[in-house]
């Protein structure tokens, strides 16, 4: 019977084996980085909105508190978005002819809500709760970045599980006193451990899977 494999095949096999392993590794690496890339986590994306609402003007320029518009942030899981009536509590008198605000006036006249496009979106299998964070010393800035510098809203943080856990393991450095929750540009005063005690946060509990996947 003639030889099926030529002796040279030995070398080729080694090259193929090593090459295959390297290719697998490369694919894994690419997958790892793509999975955490802004493209997949949505970080930095700026969806188009019906009205180009500027947090920079309203929060940074006019100093309006987040809770004027996101009223339910400290009493429910959902932060809430302002209704048309809220915009009109100022814009009934200000910028009443601006073309930019035409959809808002139209919305009030026809009693049809504005359709804002979601910027942040966790998967449905993750449980998140604003009230629990905001009433326990975590400021908006820790998760949403410098909102007062955003002419258009964008997602400032990756919002991956790793990112959530990084804080849940060591929340002390992020904690703020109660009256600085909505402040922007606040530098923690270094009294995290005292605050941890004051807010009665149990760090051993909040790293368990069931806290977020329930």
């Amino acid at each position, binding site marked *: 019977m003639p030889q099926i494999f030529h002796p040279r095949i030995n070398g080729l096999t080694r090259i193929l084996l090593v090459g295959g392993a390297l290719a697998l590794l490369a694919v894994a690496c690419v997958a790892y980085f793509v999975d955490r890339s802004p493209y997949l986590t949505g970080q930095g994306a700026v969806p188009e909105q019906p009205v180009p609402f500027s947090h920079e003007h309203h929060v940074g320029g*006019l*100093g*309006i*508190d987040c*809770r*004027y518009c996101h*009223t339910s942030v400290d009493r429910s*899981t*959902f932060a809430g*978005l302002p*209704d048309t*009536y*809220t915009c*009109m*509590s*100022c814009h*009934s*008198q*200000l910028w009443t002819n601006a073309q930019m605000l035409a959809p808002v006036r139209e919305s009030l006249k026809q009693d*049809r*809500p504005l*359709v804002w496009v979601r910027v942040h979106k966790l*998967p*449905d*299998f993750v449980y998140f709760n604003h009230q629990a964070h905001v009433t326990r010393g975590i400021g908006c800035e820790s998760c949403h970045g410098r909102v007062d510098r955003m002419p258009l809203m964008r997602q400032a943080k990756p919002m991956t599980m790793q990112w959530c856990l990084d804080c849940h393991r060591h929340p002390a450095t992020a904690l703020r006193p109660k*009256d600085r929750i909505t402040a922007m540009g606040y530098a923690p005063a270094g009294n995290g451990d005292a605050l941890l005690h004051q807010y009665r946060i149990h760090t051993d509990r909040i790293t368990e899977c069931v806290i977020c996947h329930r």
Partner: protein
Amino acid sequence: MRNQPRYDPYQAAPGWPNDQSARMPVEGTVSRNQAVETRPTTLPEPLSRELLELGRERFDIFCSPCHGGTGNGDGAIVQRGFPAPPSLHSARLRNAPLGHFYDVISDGFGVMYSYAARVPPDERWAIAAYIRALQLSQHGSLEDLTPQQRRELERQNQGGKAP
């Protein structure tokens, strides 16, 4: 898994009115824990430090953009051209009962819109009480101090004047 067959708050629901999953309550709906009796004539709970702190927080959020931090009526929105509200320290408003502030928050007043949707009744009373505290703060006199506070103040004053 990422999109489960349920509605998140405010999620769109094609086919329903306005494509909304959130429905408007039927006209005349009374919510479960809503007080049905008429509004009490004055503060329904005892005055406490916590109540005033809550009032300050809510006043700073909802009222100070127009009325200003001290109630003088010179907030940031007014500086951008919103009609100026009257100062909360006028004789008329200082003599107004707390219920008046409650009503203005609930129903609005002139060009000021209603804040009923965003400020629940207990917080309206807290804000009313805080406005009263603001008014007193602008019209305090030496006679309001206890003898001990007065001595303290005089001591500080002398300390300030000494070189």
